C-alpha cells in the first residue's frame, strides 16, 4: 500500500464534491430544469467550455494507451495521437454557430433532439438513441477498468474497492449535479491533466539526464521504432486514417458534440476555438511521448500499458507521483461523466418520453434524469467489477461504429437541405454495419485504411443516394432549420397549433 501516492489521488476525488455543489447551486437558478440539467442552461464561458470539450474527448487512451503502444511499436503511435490536436476546432467549429442557433430556436437539449427535429422519423430517433446507449455504456466500463487497473497496481489497493470509489464518486456528482457539475469538474480535471503532462516532462528529463541522454538512448533502440512505417505500421493510408478518426470524426461523438450547444455566446466559442489546439497538444504529447523514454529506461517490461505508471512511480517522489497519476484518472472521469449524461438524456428524453410517455413535465424529466444517471453509474460500476467477455467486442466497436454512423447524418443534416430521413437511417445503419464487417470479418473492405474511414465514405454515399431517391424533407423541416425565428413562428401558426413537445 502506497499511501503517499494514494493521498493526492484521494484529494482529487474529494475536490470534485465542492465543485459539484457549486454547480448544483447554480443550476437551481434556471427556469427550465431539463435544459439546465442536461446542458447547463447554455451558460458556459470559454475556459470551462474548452476544458470540458477537450477533457471529454481525451480519454484513458490518450494518457495510458498511447504511451503503451509507443513503448511497444514506436513513434508512429505518438504521431497518430497528435492528430487529435485540431479536435476542438472540429467538435465546436464544424457544427458551429448554426448548431448553437438552431438549438436555441428549437430548444434542442440532447444529441438526439437534433436528429428528431431534422429527420422527423421515429426510426432515426430510436436507432440513434439505442446505439448511443449500448456503445457508450460499454465504453465507460472500459474506461473504468483501465483506470482502476492502473491504480491497483500502483497503490496496491484492492481493485473492487477502487472501482466502487472511483465509479461511485463520478456517478454521484454527475447524477446530482448534471451538466454543470460535469463541466466544472472537467475544467478541474483538465487543469490536472495539463499540469500532469508538463510536470512529467520536467521531472523525467531531469531524472534521465536531459535530451541528449534521451537521444542516445533512443538511438540505441531498434531503428524500426523511430522510422515510418516501422513497427507501428504507420504508412500513408494509416496516417490519413488516424487523422480522420481522431480529428475529423470526433466531431460526431455525442458526448463531445452536445457541448457545441452549451456555450454562452459567440465570444466564448471564438476563444475556445483558438486556445483548444494548444491545450490538446500538451495533453497528448505530455504522456504519449513518454512511451519511448519508458523503452529506454525499461527495455523489457511485460505489460506495455504499465510502463508509464511504473516510470512515474520510480522517478517522482510519492506525492508528486500521485498528482501526476491523477491526470489519467481525471481523463477517465471527465470522459465518463459526460457520457453518463448523454446516455441518461437518450434514455429519459429520447426513448422514454419519445416512445412511452410523451406528456412528461419539465420537472419530471429533470428528476428522472437524476435517477437515471445514477442508475447508469451503478450499471457501469457493476459491469466494471467483473467485465463480461462479450463486452470487449462491443468496446472495440463502440467509438469507430458511432463515428462511422453519426458523422454524415449530423453534418450534412445541418448544412444540406436535401438530406432526408431515409438517408439518415441508411447512413446510420450502413456506416455501422460496414464498420462491423470491415473491422471484424472482411478486412479487404477497408482498402488498406482503418475500417472507420471506408465505413464513413460508405455512409456518405448512402446518404447522398437516398437524398435523391427518397422524398425531399418537408417544408416544415426546411423552415425549422433554415428560416428565421419569425418564419418558424409564422409556419407554426399556419399549420395546426401546438404540435411541438
Amino acid at each position: 500500500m502506497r499511501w503517499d501516492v494514494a493521498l493526492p489521488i484521494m484529494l482529487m476525488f474529494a475536490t470534485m464534491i465542492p465543485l459539484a455543489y457549486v454547480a448544483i447551486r447554480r443550476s437551481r437558478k434556471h427556469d427550465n430544469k431539463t435544459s439546465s440539467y442536461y446542458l447547463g442552461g447554455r451558460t458556459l464561458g470559454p475556459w470551462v467550455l474548452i476544458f470540458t470539450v477537450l477533457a471529454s474527448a481525451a480519454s484513458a487512451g490518450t494518457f495510458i494507451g498511447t504511451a503503451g503502444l509507443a513503448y511497444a511499436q514506436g513513434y508512429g503511435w505518438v504521431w497518430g495521437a497528435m492528430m487529435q490536436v485540431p479536435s476542438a476546432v472540429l467538435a465546436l467549429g464544424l457544427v458551429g454557430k448554426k448548431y448553437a442557433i438552431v438549438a436555441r430556436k428549437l430548444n434542442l437539449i440532447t444529441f438526439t433532439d437534433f436528429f428528431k427535429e431534422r429527420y422527423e422519423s421515429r426510426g432515426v430517433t430510436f436507432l440513434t438513441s439505442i446505439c448511443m446507449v449500448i456503445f457508450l455504456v460499454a465504453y465507460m466500463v472500459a474506461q473504468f477498468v483501465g483506470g482502476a487497473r492502473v491504480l491497483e497496481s500502483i497503490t496496491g489497493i484492492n481493485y473492487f474497492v477502487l472501482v466502487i470509489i472511483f465509479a461511485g464518486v463520478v456517478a454521484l456528482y454527475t447524477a446530482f449535479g448534471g451538466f454543470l457539475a460535469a463541466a466544472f469538474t472537467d475544467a478541474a480535471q483538465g487543469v490536472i491533466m495539463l499540469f500532469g503532462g508538463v510536470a512529467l516532462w520536467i521531472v523525467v528529463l531531469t531524472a534521465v539526464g536531459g535530451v541528449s541522454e534521451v537521444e542516445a538512448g533512443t538511438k540505441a533502440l531498434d531503428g524500426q521504432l523511430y522510422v515510418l512505417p516501422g513497427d507501428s505500421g504507420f504508412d500513408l493510408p494509416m496516417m490519413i486514417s488516424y487523422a480522420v478518426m481522431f480529428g475529423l470524426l470526433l466531431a460526431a461523438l455525442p458526448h463531445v458534440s452536445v457541448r457545441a450547444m452549451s456555450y454562452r455566446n459567440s465570444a466564448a466559442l471564438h476563444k475556445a476555438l483558438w486556445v483548444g489546439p494548444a491545450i490538446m497538444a500538451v495533453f497528448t504529447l505530455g504522456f504519449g511521448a513518454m512511451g519511448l523514454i519508458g523503452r529506454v529506461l525499461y527495455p523489457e517490461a511485460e505489460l506495455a500499458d504499465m510502463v508509464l505508471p511504473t516510470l512515474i512511480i520510480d522517478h517522482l517522489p510519492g506525492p508528486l507521483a500521485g498528482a501526476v497519476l491523477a491526470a489519467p484518472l481525471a481523463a477517465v472521469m471527465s470522459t465518463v461523466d459526460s457520457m453518463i449524461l448523454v446516455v441518461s438524456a437518450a434514455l429519459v428524453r429520447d426513448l422514454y418520453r419519445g416512445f412511452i410517455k410523451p406528456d412528461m413535465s419539465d420537472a419530471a424529466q429533470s428528476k428522472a434524469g437524476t435517477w437515471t444517471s445514477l442508475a447508469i453509474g451503478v450499471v457501469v460500476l457493476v459491469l466494471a467489477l467483473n467485465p463480461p467477455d462479450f463486452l470487449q467486442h462491443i468496446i472495440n466497436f463502440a467509438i469507430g461504429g458511432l463515428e462511422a454512423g453519426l458523422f454524415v447524418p449530423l453534418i450534412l443534416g445541418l448544412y444540406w437541405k436535401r438530406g432526408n430521413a431515409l438517408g439518415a437511417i441508411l447512413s446510420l445503419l450502413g456506416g455501422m454495419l460496414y464498420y462491423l464487417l470491415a473491422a471484424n470479418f472482411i478486412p479487404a473492405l477497408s482498402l488498406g485504411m482503418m475500417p472507420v474511414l471506408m465505413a464513413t465514405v460508405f455512409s456518405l454515399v448512402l446518404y447522398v443516394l437516398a437524398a435523391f431517391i427518397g422524398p425531399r424533407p418537408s417544408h416544415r423541416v426546411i423552415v425549422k432549420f433554415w428560416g428565421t425565428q419569425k418564419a418558424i413562428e409564422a409556419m407554426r401558426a399556419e399549420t395546426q397549433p401546438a404540435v411541438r413537445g
Partner: protein
Amino acid sequence: MSSQTEHASARTTEFEEDPRYRIAGREALLCFGYWAVFTVGAVIIAWLLGHRDPSQIGFIMGFPDWFFWSALAFVAVMAIPVPYLIVKLGFTDMDLEPEPQPGSPGAREVKR
C-alpha cells in the same frame, strides 16, 4: 410528428432564411479547411522525412527529426498562431439568440 405536410414539400412556399446561417456555414468551412491543411501538412512532413532507413534519421531535442518537424514544429504553428488568426480574421461575432438584437451582425437590418 409524422409527415403530414407532404404536399408542401415541393418548395412552393417562400420563407425568409436566417442570414446568420450563411456566415456560420462559411466558418464551418474554414474549420474544415484548417483540419485539412493540418492533416496534409503533418502527413507530408512526417512521411518525407520519416520514411527512410533508421541510419539516416537525425535527432532534434531527443526526438527523431521527422517527428520533431511534423508533430512538434508544424503542430506548434498550427496550434498557436494559425487558429488565432483564423478566428480573428475569419469569424464574425454574432448574437446566437433566436431573434438577434437589431444592429448585431446577422440581424435582418444588416443583411441589406
